């Protein structure tokens, strides 16, 4: 990548962090919780965005951030006492800034009117503060020093370079410090006599401060490398008060096995302009100039290049030095040195590869355990305990790797304040968003897929849930409505709740619509919960009129489907007059699953354990036939449909006799239950999910695949699909349990 482009990308990443900080800061200030540091952080964010944008000539971004900054500068002294309305304007200005950064990154173009309008709004805030309005800055050159140095009364002060090194450097003693240039090129014999260049360089570093440059131009292509030949040479600049003899002593034992050139340079920097005095090996200059011009797009300068290797070079392997021709100190080196930097950025693909490999490891481990079991090895003491230990370690590795993918839900949550602002502006409702449990961690894939459903639910909560300020006041509630968003872990799943303190679900209206649309029959009597959950039915939309916010009919059913596709469940509970709570329960990861291994015919299948309620031995007298293919099974005081899984999947032509198999009572997320008739149950185990769609194609009734301990592929049954196919094929003559009123 073009080096400037690369720096620009770094800038954009910083912008993301800065703008998130800006938003958080403004929200804190609006809530009246901010201190001076919050104000500073907010200013710094806008200021830094402007500064960077100027450097990359991103004009739109520069001009707006300039206006923004100027307005805030004017308000600075009484920033903490600004009105809520002013902060709302600033927050929307921050939103615009986010969009402008996105535009600069090649995203959607921001309409000029929007910027103009926002500029006016910002200036209006100022007018209220009786300050002079900021003008939109049109071009970059206005940022050239507006006043010359003397105009500001500034006279540049000469810098006098004293013997800085001599004064302070602990490694050298006062005025006698010298700068030495040492060129060290080992012969093949050097290595043959068991000497090591690294050791010599390290020894040299004890004499003083050294700057090392590696020349590797004589290194041939891989296939031409003679392993016993020496290809590298070093140019070392040593700052030390030692004598030439001291330096020669370091190379004492290898003097005949290398080319060594030692010259003294001056120690006075001001008096050392003569670049000829430093002559590193010509190769060095060529090489590093080439590298540098590649990096900076500049012409190679003829002067010597002395890379700073203060941090690591002498200790480093030669290859490392080559990898990082450290022109400046690398950020990594700094980060390693700085104690607060404890994170690294890793390409997601690498993590996915690791996850995949661990998946293979788990499979392999269980295969090994199975083989050892079959051949009787595991009975032998050593093998058995070894295998147990391997299983434990594998499980630990798996958990640790999964934890790498885990991310706090904050990344999704922090998108919502902006959404709330936009919707509250559109609907005229006053809304406060409260969040809790932002640090709760969940798999990255789950997080990515959470954004859309959450957005939709927040929209719904404000658009349909909350009342208008007038309605609220009339009902004796505060005019400001509250939407709460929380996340926490519960029994291996993540629970996300979105609640509002609105009017709750209007059940009469819901029933009326559901009946009108034929979603339920007129005679059906439903519990409160059942009525509430009708809003998840496809095609259900309660908005009196279709609004631009909640859309047309693609309401909660879509949300429900996307949550279910993540292996999650969603439900609602509502109290008239006090509000509604949506509860989502999601798996922590999509990569593994606890499953029950069953057999149907000669196939091994997996039923997700969270769908399984109980297992039963079917008795002939409990089975009732409804036509030739439909059967129900009596289960305590109810009847549930009995489905022969093998027959349904086309693995056998005829229905299996119930007495020949085992029944598994399963339930989908909607609470519909059926009994699955299968040949046998082999056991429970954790399985690694392998996508069928990616590796083969989508197969009806199958969610994914996995590999068993014996190496066989086992398909994972999509219980929801099985129940749905059952409902549609039977044309609702048999409905799941709760809607069936068969006498036992």
């Amino acid at each position, binding site marked *: 990548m073009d080096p400037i482009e690369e720096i*620009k990308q770094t800038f954009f990443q910083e912008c993301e962090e800065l703008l998130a900080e800006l938003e958080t800061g403004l929200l804190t200030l609006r809530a009246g919780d901010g201190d001076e540091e919050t104000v500073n952080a907010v200013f710094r964010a806008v200021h830094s965005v402007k500064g960077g944008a100027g450097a990359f000539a991103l004009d739109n971004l520069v001009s707006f951030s300039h206006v923004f900054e100027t307005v805030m500068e004017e308000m600075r002294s009484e920033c903490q006492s600004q009105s809520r309305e002013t902060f709302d304007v600033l927050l929307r200005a921050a939103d615009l800034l986010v969009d402008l950064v996105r535009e600069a990154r090649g995203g959607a173009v921001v309409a000029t009117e929007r910027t103009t309008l926002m500029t006016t709004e910002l200036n209006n805030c100022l007018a209220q503060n009786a300050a002079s309005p900021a003008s939109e800055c049109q071009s970059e050159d206005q940022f050239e020093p507006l006043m010359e140095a003397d105009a500001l009364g500034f006279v540049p002060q000469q810098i006098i370079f004293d013997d800085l090194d001599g004064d302070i450097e602990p490694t050298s003693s006062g005025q006698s410090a010298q700068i030495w240039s040492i060129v060290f090129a080992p012969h093949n014999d050097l290595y043959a006599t068991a000497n090591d260049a690294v050791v010599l360089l390290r020894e040299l570093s004890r004499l003083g401060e050294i700057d090392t440059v590696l020349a590797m131009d004589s290194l041939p292509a891989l296939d031409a490398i003679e392993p016993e030949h020496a290809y590298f040479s070093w140019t070392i600049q040593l700052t030390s008060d030692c004598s030439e003899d001291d330096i020669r002593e370091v190379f004492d034992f290898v003097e005949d096995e290398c080319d060594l050139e030692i010259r003294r340079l001056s120690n006075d920097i001001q008096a050392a302009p003569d670049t000829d005095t430093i002559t590193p090996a010509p190769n060095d200059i060529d090489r590093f100039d080439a590298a540098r011009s590649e990096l900076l797009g500049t012409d190679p300068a003829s002067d010597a290049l002395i890379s700073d290797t203060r941090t690591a070079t002498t200790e480093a392997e030669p290859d490392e030095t080559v990898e990082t021709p450290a022109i400046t100190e690398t950020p990594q080196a700094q980060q390693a040195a700085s104690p607060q930097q404890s994170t690294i950025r890793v390409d997601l693909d690498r993590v996915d590869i690791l996850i995949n490999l661990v998946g293979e490891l788990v499979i392999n481990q269980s295969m090994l355990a199975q083989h050892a079991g079959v051949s009787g090895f595991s009975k032998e003491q050593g093998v058995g305990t070894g295998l147990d230990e391997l299983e434990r370690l594998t499980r630990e590795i798996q958990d640790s790797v999964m934890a790498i993918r885990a991310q706090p839900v904050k990344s999704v949550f922090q998108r919502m304040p902006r959404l709330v602002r936009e919707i509250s502006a559109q609907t005229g409702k006053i809304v406060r968003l409260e969040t809790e449990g932002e640090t709760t961690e969940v798999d990255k894939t789950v997080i990515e897929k959470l954004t859309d459903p959450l957005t939709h639910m927040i929209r719904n909560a404000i658009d349909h849930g909350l009342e208008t300020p007038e309605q609220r006041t009339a009902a004796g509630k505060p005019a400001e409505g509250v939407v709460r968003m929380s996340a926490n872990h519960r029994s291996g799943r993540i629970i996300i709740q979105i609640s509002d303190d609105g009017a709750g679900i209007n059940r009469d209206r819901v029933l009326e619509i559901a009946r009108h649309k034929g979603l339920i029959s007129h005679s059906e009597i439903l519990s409160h919960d059942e009525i509430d959950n009708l809003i998840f039915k496809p095609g259900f939309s309660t908005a009196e009129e279709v609004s631009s916010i909640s859309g047309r009919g693609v309401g909660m059913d879509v949300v429900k489907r996307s949550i279910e596709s993540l292996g999650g469940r969603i439900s609602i509970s509502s109290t008239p007059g006090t509000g509604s709570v949506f509860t989502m329960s999601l798996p922590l990861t999509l990569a593994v699953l606890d499953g029950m291994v069953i057999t149907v015919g000669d196939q091994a299948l997996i039923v997700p354990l969270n769908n399984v309620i109980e297992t039963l031995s079917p008795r002939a007298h409990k089975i009732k036939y409804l036509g030739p293919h439909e059967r129900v099974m009596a289960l305590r005081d109810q009847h549930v449909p009995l489905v022969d899984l093998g027959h349904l999947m086309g693995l056998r032509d005829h229905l299996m006799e119930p007495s020949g198999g085992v029944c598994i009572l399963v339930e989908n997320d909607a609470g519909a239950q059926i009994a699955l008739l299968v040949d046998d149950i082999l056991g429970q185990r954790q399985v690694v999910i392998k996508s069928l769609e990616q590796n083969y194609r989508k197969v009806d009734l199958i969610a994914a695949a996995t590999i068993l301990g014996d190496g066989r592929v086992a398909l994972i049954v999509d219980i929801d699909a099985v129940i749905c196919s059952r409902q549609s094929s039977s044309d609702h003559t048999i409905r799941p349990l709760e809607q069936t009123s068969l006498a036992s």
Partner: protein
Amino acid sequence: MPAANQIKVLVVDDQLSMRKLIAGALMQIGFRRIFEENNGKAGLAHATSSPVHLVISDYNMPDMDGLEFLKQLRAHPLAGKTGFIMLTGRADATLVGRARELGVNNYVVKPFTVTHLKAKLEQVIGKLT
């Protein structure tokens, strides 16, 4: 006429992108011994423990801003005379005045071109080779 490649420069800015840009500009001018820190506190620790000839520091930084950095650096018995060039977002008379009182050698308004930076450096160092 000092040789740019002999001068140790410490670039202090909280933004990685700005540090890279400044370091890139310094490379073009001919500097080779460039160090980086990301705030005033880290800059001060660097400049006092491992001396440099010149500091180029941003003003607006978390933890310790450029002015405080300058003040504390000037107070240091050994590193007190280190050259100091302040980067500012705007030509603000108050800020520049404070910096002058504290003994700044020069200031540069962002954004700047390589030529501009070089000119500002030469004002205080002399013609660079």
